[in-house]
């Protein structure tokens, strides 16, 4: 227990918990808070989710509100859209983000477009939770990072927490939002611990980044697992190079202002994210910062990500392609 000041919101007591626990607590609190909210997904009930995120929630809320589904992602994603349009607040779990292709249509043409196509006359309060990333030896069909697709898709929001605090604060905002929000977990950091405000009304606004560590020489803006990698590296480099680390938190909307402020100070930017590099999340950060911060930049913005491969199975190969502190270090070396 300690006190801290979160980004933009004064908070009091905190508790140490893992990202997995933070997600579960956010779900628990929001289910308790709003009886229109319910969970839907494969084996999220008694089984507790294959990566044990939903855990015991079914015991507290029952099978109607923590609903196991057949293996029909398109069917239940569509059902979530139909349910949301008619007055409920579905929270969908897609077991691995690689399975989003199975239900992409209902996202692309229904969830994302209904409000606009209908002239604003439809609410779409859906939250989609899913897990991304390598590190488990789960091979190419269970290790992808696909959040750029949804960050690019007009009509949905996308967030990518890099800490337990961000996980809880963003998930609660996502659930409360009347717009569709994609919440991208990273399976490699479920056990990462952090301080999380206990206040049940602690939320982080969608569209807000968080400066996790201040620094003067170079800014690293990171997502998900790369936030921790960056913080560790910054700590290691302390004294030598002063690294500012920002958790982007929200891919869309994006908190461009916070990035610009930081780059104004450091003049150098590294973007670290586990999506494949080409047309990846990094590129949008680059585009925005150079657009509005061109004259602050002293060096080209560097990108650290997956080198346009899939995630291979073998442990000898998998870590090779995953962005990590080494890659961030190399990027810093190129510009500092």
């Amino acid at each position, binding site marked *: 227990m300690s006190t801290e000041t979160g980004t933009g919101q004064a908070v009091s007591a905190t508790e140490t918990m893992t990202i997995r626990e933070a997600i579960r607590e956010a779900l628990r609190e929001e289910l308790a808070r709003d009886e229109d909210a*319910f969970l839907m997904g494969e084996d999220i009930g008694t089984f507790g989710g294959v990566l044990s995120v939903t855990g015991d929630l079914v015991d507290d809320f029952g099978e*109607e509100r923590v609903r196991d*589904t*057949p293996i*029909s992602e*398109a*069917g*239940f*994603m*569509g*059902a*979530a*859209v*139909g*349910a*949301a*349009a*008619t*007055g*409920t607040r*579905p929270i969908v779990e897609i077991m691995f983000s690689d399975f989003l292709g199975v239900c992409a*249509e*209902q996202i692309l*043409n*229904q969830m994302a477009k*209904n*409000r*606009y*196509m*209908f*002239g*604003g*006359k*439809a*609410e779409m309060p859906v939250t989609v939770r899913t897990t991304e990333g390598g590190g488990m030896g789960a091979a190419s069909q269970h290790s992808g990072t696909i959040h750029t697709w949804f960050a690019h898709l*007009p*009509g949905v*929001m996308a967030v990518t927490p890099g800490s337990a605090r961000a996980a809880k604060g963003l998930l609660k905002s996502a659930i409360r*939002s*009347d*717009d569709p929000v994609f919440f991208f977990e990273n399976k490699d950091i479920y056990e990462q611990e952090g301080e999380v405000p206990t206040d049940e009304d602690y939320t982080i606004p*969608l*569209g807000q980044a968080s400066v996790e560590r201040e620094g003067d020489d170079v800014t690293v803006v990171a997502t998900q697992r790369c936030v921790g990698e960056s913080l560790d590296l910054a700590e290691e480099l302390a004294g030598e190079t002063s690294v500012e680390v920002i958790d982007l938190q929200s891919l*869309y*909307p*994006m908190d461009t202002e916070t990035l610009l402020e930081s780059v104004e100070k450091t003049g150098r930017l590294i973007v670290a994210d586990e999506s494949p590099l080409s047309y990846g999340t990094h590129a949008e950060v680059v585009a925005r910062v150079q657009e509005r911060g061109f004259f602050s930049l002293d060096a080209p913005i560097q990108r650290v990500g997956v080198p346009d491969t899939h995630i291979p199975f073998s442990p000898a190969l998998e870590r090779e392609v995953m962005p990590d502190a080494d890659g961030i270090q190399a990027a810093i070396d190129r510009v500092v």
Partner: protein
Amino acid sequence: MVTIDIKAESGQREMLRRMLTIRAFDTRAGELFADGELPGFVHLYIGEEAVGVGAISALEPDDYITSTHRGHGHCIAKGLDTYQMMAELYGKRDGYCNGKGGSMHIADVDAGMLGANGIVGAGPPLATGAALTASYKDEDRVALAFFGDGAVAQGQVHEGINLAATWDLPAIFVVENNHFGEATPVENQHNVEHLSATAEAYNIPGFTVDGMDVTAVYEAVEEARARAAAGDGPTFIEADTYRYKGHFEGDHEPYRTKDDIDDARERDAIDRFKTRLVDAGVITDAEFDDLEAEVEAEIDEATERAQDAEYPDPSEAYEDMFGAHVPEIEEFAARVRTDGGERQ
């Protein structure tokens, strides 16, 4: 209470009126499209009126429907306003979607019309979701999905039905088998004789009804609704029907002959229902003509008003993406609309 009581004479007349309204509306839409008045695609429901009117009349007013790219008939059967529909076809601000949706996306969620849909097969999972809301909230409502024979080849149709069947949701699935998916005959899309065989895969009741007999459709849906509301799960209904016009306006129709269409017209749903009502003394020929004239006048007025109505302001293109404020849209808009809100 059903939307229209088919046992009452007034109900029968109202069903006839709605079928006539659909035919008049879509005949007009076809003409306007041919005249270059309407942008985009227009898919006409002419010939299939008995399906939409029969099915929706048997629902309760609060029930939900999901529709297709060929949605005008479902809208009118659901009681939507023909002026707001026509305004939408023109892309005017008074339209159901303020001009943003057009023919393929007319929706009125509050009225239970969850949207025409440009994606073949997307409706059934949405209907399953609406049925889930009803079940979750313990409301006496059912959801009915219309979809085409072609759509039965879409996986998500199966997923939607399987979910509803497994969860015993109050849903009704209605295939409008008009014998073609665009230019492709149903025989080249499926291996079954009757699409109602699909029901077997989900162990739910499945029927093929004459989709050009409004009474037959009504009765099948009335029964299905009772089953759904009783918690006995979904029903799958195939309505055998036919579209008289091309797939979309402009279709050169190499896939059928004029004779094929004439054959179908012999079973015309409006003619048959009219004859039945005249025979039963519910309506006279003269009253029928009056009804037709009334409907025609309604469509005239809707069209004229729609023509005169205002287009949305270009700046409205940036609205309605989200409920929340999203700064990027504003910023990007500002780059194009540099000159005091006017596009450069």
